[in-house]
């Protein structure tokens, strides 16, 4: 484990902070050239004595967990086999900006659950299901009230025409790039440039490459021209949205010159509570991308100081352990 302080290691092994701490630690190994052949790290349970393994199996009968069957893998793990594992996306801290009524900037449009942003700050340690249920109830009630009290707003025919044209234009494009090819590039860029450990150089590269991909999208060619049962067409539209979201993510991540929660900047390894105790609101309108810092609304008083990233985690771990001891 790449964490120096044993308190952080304990946090990684015993709390919901594990996802953050494990992914950073394993990515660090890969970046420093100690990764496994497929670009991950080895995960072994060999240190578990047999009776502890038995107890673990009783906790997960048949080695089944949330619909997945791990029995084959666990049989091999028991023999001392190590699996190759690597970090992957699980939850997005950012998202559509909403207020406490789940309203977006568009009147009548509400957002709830993981697609919304900001509820958990820089690292989600509570359940996303709770967010989904609570915000879903709020958004549902507000939307019903809004719909009952207001006439449906007029539909902007010009915008409908524009969007239809944009989606169907994929059929008219003549180029040499395939969806699969471009999708692979976008995925790779998201992992390497806007991934677990970031810096200005990588983020700038992600920004310029994503802009280039947006250009290339206009010369994308569909092999499948029919309008129904066309996965390739669906993927093209998705790809356009993916490139847009990732470009905005990269711009925001480059702007935030600090490390906080899941956002770790190699070139700014401090939690900056002087300049960055703020949300970064990203807006893309006709005039281009706009990034606006907005102060966090919180009743918790935090000293205005800069703390080295790992020290900030130790502080959080200590606060968490003190709370547990009290309760």
């Amino acid at each position, binding site marked *: 484990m790449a964490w120096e302080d044993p308190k952080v290691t304990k946090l990684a092994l015993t709390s919901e902070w594990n996802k953050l701490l494990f992914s950073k630690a394993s990515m660090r190994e890969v970046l420093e050239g100690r990764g496994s052949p497929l670009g991950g790290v080895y995960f072994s349970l060999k240190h578990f004595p047999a009776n502890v393994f038995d107890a673990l199996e009783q906790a997960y009968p048949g080695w089944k967990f949330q*619909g*997945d069957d791990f029995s084959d893998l666990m049989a091999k793990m028991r023999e001392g086999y190590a699996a190759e594992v690597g970090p992957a996306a699980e939850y997005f801290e950012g998202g559509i900006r909403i207020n406490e009524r789940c309203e977006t900037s568009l009147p009548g449009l509400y957002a709830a659950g993981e697609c919304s942003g900001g509820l958990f700050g820089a690292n989600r340690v509570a359940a996303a299901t709770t967010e989904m249920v609570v915000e879903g109830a709020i958004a549902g009630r507000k939307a019903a009230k809004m719909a009952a009290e207001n006439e449906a707003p007029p539909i902007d025919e010009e915008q409908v025409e524009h969007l239809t044209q944009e989606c169907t234009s994929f059929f008219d494009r003549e180029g040499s790039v395939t969806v699969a090819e471009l999708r692979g590039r976008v995925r790779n860029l998201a992992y390497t440039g806007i991934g677990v450990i970031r810096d200005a150089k990588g983020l700038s590269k992600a920004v310029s490459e994503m802009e280039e991909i947006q250009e290339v999208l206009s010369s994308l060619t569909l092999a499948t021209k*029919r309008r129904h*049962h*066309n*996965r390739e067409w669906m993927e093209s539209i998705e790809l356009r949205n993916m490139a847009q979201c990732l470009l905005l993510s990269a711009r925001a991540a480059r702007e935030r010159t600090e490390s906080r929660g899941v956002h770790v900047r190699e070139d700014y390894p401090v939690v900056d509570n002087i300049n960055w105790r703020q949300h970064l609101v990203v807006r893309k309108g006709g005039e281009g991308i706009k990034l606006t810092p907005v102060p966090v609304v919180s009743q918790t008083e935090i000293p205005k100081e800069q703390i080295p990233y790992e020290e900030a985690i130790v502080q959080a771990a200590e606060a968490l352990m003190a709370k547990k001891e009290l309760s």
Partner: protein
Amino acid sequence: MTGNDEIAVQIRVWQETGESAYREYVIPVDGEMNVLNVLEYVHEHLDPAVSYKSSCRRGVCGACAMAINGKRRLACETVAEDGMTINPFEGA
């Protein structure tokens, strides 16, 4: 007939003519593959016309329910085998 490290499957595909028909594809097998892995491979490397629905890829959501050898199955939970018939448009 195929070698040990590849399998041949029949997949129902919509044609440009507006009708659907079965086509045969030969897929290299890397360890154990499920039917969804097969569809993904064919769509990406052999024939983008092959279409199907999927979401969670791990047996929770049900999006990849389809007819496999005439039976209703989840593509992500069914081990791919040589000679299989896959119809992504039935059994959902």
